[in-house]
């Protein structure tokens, strides 16, 4: 496929449909007209930019930063056996895998639960900030960063599944059992909120030329 800048009438903005890929030309309108455009092929709503993208990204990010603290400080599960109760936080679980000499799994859980979470929060904060403050800075790298965040985002669900599976499978009453704890809810909320923040951010903003004087 070849880049094509000049051969299409540039006065009309071309919109690609997110769902079917059909390209349509937006009719020229006043800036603040409330008209909504729909794809001629699949009737999906078309947007030149995701609506209120930056506001929504910042809101989801703020919520996930707030919940990030209880997600990591509160216990996510308790294991009970005849001799004692153990409560685990996220990092406690990784520590146990490490002392059990399951180094590979410990590394996977560390990346999924801690690195991916921090990466999503820091990267989206950086992306949203640079759109407003440094629009020309490292565009290609920022576009790549967004794609990485989009791709790895759902891996932070890993620990949520682990606790659900353990709670569902280890149930020998007092002999051995596993119970989910409130930290798990905060952790799961951070996973979902960061995924929503990723989705709210519009990567096209990276390439948008700032308005003169804006």
């Amino acid at each position, binding site marked *: *496929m070849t*880049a094509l800048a000049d051969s299409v009438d540039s006065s009309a903005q071309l919109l690609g449909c*997110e769902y079917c890929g059909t390209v349509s030309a937006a009719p020229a309108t006043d800036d603040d007209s409330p*008209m909504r455009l729909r794809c001629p092929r*699949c009737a999906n709503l078309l947007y030149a930019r995701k609506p209120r993208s930056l506001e929504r990204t910042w809101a989801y990010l703020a919520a996930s930063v707030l919940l990030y603290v209880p997600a990591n400080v509160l216990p996510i599960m308790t294991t009970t056996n005849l001799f004692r109760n153990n409560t685990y936080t996220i990092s406690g679980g990784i520590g146990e895998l490490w002392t059990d000499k399951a180094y590979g799994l410990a590394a996977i859980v560390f990346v999924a639960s801690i690195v991916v979470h921090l990466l999503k929060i820091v990267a989206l904060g950086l992306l949203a900030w640079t759109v407003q403050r440094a629009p020309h800075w490292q565009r290609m790298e920022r576009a790549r960063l967004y794609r990485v965040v989009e791709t790895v985002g759902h891996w932070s669900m890993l620990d949520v*599944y682990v*606790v659900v*599976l353990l*709670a569902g499978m280890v149930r020998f009453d007092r002999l051995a059992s596993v119970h989910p704890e409130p930290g798990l809810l905060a952790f799961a909320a951070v996973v979902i909120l960061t995924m929503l923040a990723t989705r709210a951010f519009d990567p096209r903003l990276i390439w948008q030329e700032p308005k003169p004087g804006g």
Partner: protein
Amino acid sequence: MGACDTIIKGTARLQEQHLVVCEQCDAVHRWRPLSSGEVARCSRCAAVLARGHRLGVHSMLALTLAALFVLLIANLSTIVDIHLRGAHTAATLPEAVRLTWRAGEPVVAVLAAITAIIAPALLILLRLVMLLPLAFGCAAPYFALCMRALHEATRWSMVEVLMVAAAVSIVRIAALANAQPGPGMFAFGTLALLLAALESGGLKHLWREVK
């Protein structure tokens, strides 16, 4: 709101030109057919614009049917077998979700159910609903609606993460009891592979099959 919906008219001329707009940066490209395995990237931001697909409608249908059976096996059979002093439990994923609900975490249980059971099931069923009529040469009813639902289901399906989580939980259980992977675990592994194969087949080219 007072907003009016406008279905864009007069796009026939554009469709004849076969254009592709990059979803990530708005750069406009001219479409050309891709050979199998070829990947077209945006000239401006290097996002993937399209892939040349190896699979036609019939092979996609075959894969989807296989995924449906594996999904049923995965959800109906044991993920991990646990033995402890003569006692034995063997839980399936829906059972684990139900027990998480009962243990006082209904929100987490619903979240796990949506991402590990409902979204994968929906994504397989929607593909079947669309591919079956296409295989016979006609478009599915509500094709556009199904496509949008399929996008959502694909976004929230996390079977491959569940697969790794099952491996982690076996190691964690080993501290408490004797644990063996059950057939459900292998079924989930297979399902993750099948879904990856289906997703690499892409979605948008299904539109090209519709006349």
